[in-house]
């Protein structure tokens, strides 16, 4: 079973997970430069996106800056 909970929703992957966080962002077409990532509550530094390995069941939050008062 290969699943990741991304932004509160379960996402299943056929066969294998993307190897790293950077791979996941690429797959989702999310520009890594504008995003903050949290895995299981830990903030992941941008420099580490490429080296952060993913494993099934992780809770991932992808957050970015938007308009606000």
């Amino acid at each position, binding site marked *: 079973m290969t699943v990741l909970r991304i932004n509160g929703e379960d996402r299943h992957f056929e066969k294998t997970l993307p190897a790293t966080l950077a791979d996941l962002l690429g797959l989702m077409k999310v*520009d890594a430069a*504008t995003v903050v990532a949290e895995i299981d509550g830990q903030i992941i530094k941008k420099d580490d996106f490429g080296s952060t390995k993913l494993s099934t069941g992780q809770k991932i939050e992808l957050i970015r800056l938007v*308009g606000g008062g």
Partner: protein
Amino acid sequence: MNDKLIIAGKEFDSRLFIGTGKFSSNKIMADAIESSGTQMVTVALRRVDIDNPNDNMLAAIDRKKYLLLPNTSGARNADEAVRLARLARAATGIIWLKLEVTPDPYYLLPDPIETLKAAEILVKEGFIVLPYINADPVLAKKLQDAGVATVMPLASPIGSNQGLKTKSAIEIIIAQATVPVVVDAGLGMPSHAAEAMEMGADAVLVNTAIAAAKNPVQMANAFKKAVQAGRQAFLAGGAEVKRQADASSPLTGFLRE
């Protein structure tokens, strides 16, 4: 005349800060920011929309011209606010933070207890904290004791455009403050902003009144002028309507000299 606003050692020429929410398009937002003459805009943190992953508002803001002030809107308690603050810092490297803790989704009024709790933690972690609060003078003093860089009392609830409903309380906050006071939330018209500046506020923050106006770019410019006029009036020292003193019996008649 040197009348710079100084917050945490940083100088500002403009005393108008702009919120970037609720604009109908990124272009209008960018144009309104430009016509407001502001030097700092607030931004929020939200989950990336998976279905629309590259709606990137941030690209529309020239970060060479405008400082970003991340806020913790959405946080309902101190823990959530602290988490958002750390995320914002990780995302941008910015240590300035507008602290907003609003558990009530109807009026978006700030929670004083959670705000103070979060402020104490974040100041210790090296953030430059600008807390959004109700116009509570004692809370304002406690936050100043904790080391915040400004206090930001609301004029009336967010988005209500009601103007300075909390005027007397803000007067007290201004009189007692040792940090700049930024009136934030509820300023619906430029005249409200002018009034806040005439009272002695150091700056104002405006979002809804501009974003929801028919012509946001023109409204932003009107706010710019109003803030300048209000500040100038404050510095010029206004005269007030004289009230006749109650001349019952003379109190100083006993002095012979």
